[in-house]
């Protein structure tokens, strides 16, 4: 990822950092260091990482843009350049978005592109009808969605489809919502109430987020077995306070988002220890360079930085703006769009 080109000149906020080091500071949010981390991401033009991650650039921009907006620092990036980049990635034939020029359009990057444009209130810059056609064209007779024309099916793509259409306010009268719901519910495992990528596939916190988010957008949360699924999600919290994504796996900051947002949508955030989770997320900050890593002591990256900030926002961190648990975007953007994804009340 390269954000250097999006950063406005003089955009250097690190002078405001208190600069304290050592153990105590690691438990405080290194706010300005994270801002600087995102700004400087991929600064070396010939950075090998930059080249290796080109295939998901659009999502990378969404992660950075969202995290910065949650921190109230979106104006550090050059809106105009980002929107130009996004526009260049729309495929003139299919209407879908590629992660970067020269790559193929895909459901995943189409959602990221629309999320970025919504955050910037710039949907009028692209051909939204073409996006709708792209998504409608990928729905299958069984209600599932292909990720692109080559035919891979996954519940992630069901999420992407309804999220994109919701943001465009075109979910009604475009796709077959009933069938889409039926397919997602066919991926629910009766053994634990969780969801996998396909019917029968193992329950996985990331895919549970996709399916719960899908049901939230389609207002079908009553189909969830909240007690069983909630049990499984709570078991993801480990003694370190961190959450894993499946049984017997290591904790990972990105699951703090996926598990936490699912529990939030289900009105069951209080079923895990927020305090311990917050401690775990903060322990994954890189106190020198800024940014979050998957686990304490590892190298930070933009993906975990986004989900670390998002998780802290859901936990109500005072320095962060609220984030919407279903769409993983700043709540003020969702409010501006007038969207109300379903959320269950705390019992």
């Amino acid at each position, binding site marked *: 990822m390269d954000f250097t080109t999006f950063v406005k000149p003089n955009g250097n906020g690190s002078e405001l950092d208190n600069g304290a080091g050592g153990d105590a500071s690691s438990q405080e949010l290194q706010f300005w260091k994270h801002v600087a981390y995102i700004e400087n991401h991929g600064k070396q033009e010939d950075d090998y990482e930059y080249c*290796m991650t*080109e295939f998901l650039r659009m999502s990378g921009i969404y992660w950075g843009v969202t995290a910065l907006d949650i921190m109230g620092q979106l104006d550090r990036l050059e809106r105009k350049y980002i929107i130009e980049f996004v526009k*260049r990635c729309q495929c003139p034939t299919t209407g879908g978005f590629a992660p970067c020029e*020269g790559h193929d359009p895909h459901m995943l990057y189409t959602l990221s592109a629309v999320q970025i444009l919504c955050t910037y209130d710039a949907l009028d810059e692209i051909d939204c009808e073409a996006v709708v056609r792209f998504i409608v064209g990928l729905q299958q007779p069984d209600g599932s969605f292909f990720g692109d024309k080559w035919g891979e099916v996954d519940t992630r793509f069901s999420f992407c489809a309804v999220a994109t259409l919701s943001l465009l306010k075109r979910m009604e009268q475009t796709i077959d919502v009933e069938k889409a719901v039926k397919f997602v519910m066919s991926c629910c495992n009766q053994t634990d109430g969780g969801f996998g990528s396909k019917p029968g596939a*193992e329950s996985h916190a990331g895919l549970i987020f996709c399916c719960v988010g899908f049901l939230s957008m389609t207002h079908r949360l009553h189909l969830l077995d909240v007690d069983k699924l909630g049990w499984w999600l709570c078991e993801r919290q480990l003694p370190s306070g961190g959450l894993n994504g499946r*049984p*017997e796996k290591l904790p990972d900051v990105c699951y703090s988002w996926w598990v936490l947002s699912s529990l939030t949508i289900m009105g069951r955030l209080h079923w895990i220890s927020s305090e311990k989770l917050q401690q775990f997320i903060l322990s994954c900050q890189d106190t020198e360079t800024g940014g979050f890593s998957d686990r304490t002591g590892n190298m930070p990256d933009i993906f975990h930085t986004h989900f670390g900030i998002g998780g802290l926002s859901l936990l109500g961190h005072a320095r962060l703006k609220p984030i919407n648990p279903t769409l993983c975007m700043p709540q003020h953007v969702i409010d501006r769009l007038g969207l109300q994804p379903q959320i269950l009340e705390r019992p």
Partner: protein
Amino acid sequence: MPSTTEHLVSPKKQQASEQQPNMEALDINVDFNNEKNVLCEKIIRDINAVFLKDADLSSFEIIQKETNCNKSPVVHVEHNLGLESWCAQHVYDHAHRTLISHRRQSLQQQMRTLQQQQQSDALAKYLNVALLINPDVTTFWHIRRQLVQKNRLSINKELQFSALVLSIKPKSNEAFAYRRWLYSFQSADAIDWPNEISICERSADRCACNYHAWSHRQWVLQNAPCLLQSELMRTEKFIRKHISDYSSYHYRQVVLSRAYELCFYMPSSGQTDDQTQLDDLRELFAHYDLRWSELSDEEAMVQLLLPDLNRSSISAQRLRSFLYCCNIAAHDMRLCVEQRALYGPRDCFELHRRASLKFIVEQCVRLMTGLANGVYLPQASATQSLEFQSQLRKFDYASHPFLSAVRRVESELGDKHQRWCNLHLHFGYEERRV
């Protein structure tokens, strides 16, 4: 540091050199004046030579070596291909640029490249290298799909290439998805399914909780139900060896559900009769303090598990499969207890024991309440599973000799287990306030 958007989105330099010798028969401008490019071209050519020479290439790896020692960084030993790490990033960068330049040409020009053998061969050469180093790039797999569609790449060779990618990245969903796509051109009976299972197993063996490998294996099982019996054996071996790989336990649960759904059982082999075949179920009865003597034959077992069952509504095959599958679940319950005694408590042992217990209890209730038709799989429709849940809630465990024993003995496993039983099986234990 450049401060325009150009390097973010399009490396301009690759388009700079217009008049270069078309050495590689690909209508893409590669700057051969640049020493680094020449070196990369040579390395890519060396790798390609290995591909051409060795039709049985089975693994690829990046060999950690930080400096260029002035000899070829391409190592080829006994069907194994290696590339020294110092050059990997340069080679990738070069192949990536070349491929993206191809993609940024006009559609007609791209089609021309795909259609001409010489040019598509050149393209494949860059694709091989790029995907071995970075298997996550969906677009590069798509170019291979286009080449397959134009008959420029053969399906068998492509199956081999994707297996090679799995040798370096056993978790590559792109590689598994590509294999499924390739198989869509072949008829199911022409496919070597056992080999596909081996590829899944190798990938799962090398990478714990390998989600994509186990999902792919489910797809294989779906297409080749004849593998049920061997899968039941192989998965037991796997979970005994990889005690904390829950993905493998989950897959075993799926295999069992599928076996039951398809009315599968192993015909008894004559002299042993049912006596040894259903031993695990007998032991489970003993564990639940149920008397041995009454359970000498299959009939008595059915009587205990499904008392007063209306036999006319259920086929003999269904009943045999029921006993056979419950026996496997009972076997797994005991296995989990034994493993726990050996290795100490682990989530996998607890979760898999519960899933097995749930299987037995639910299948009994299903058959008793006449809800069995079409609801064997855990993935029943939302309405079906809701209906079943309400049956489970209403079910009178006390009147059922086997299930009431289960409920009595399972209660000894602690508060949390009781809560789980209440939630999943509606055992109705009194919950203690915490």
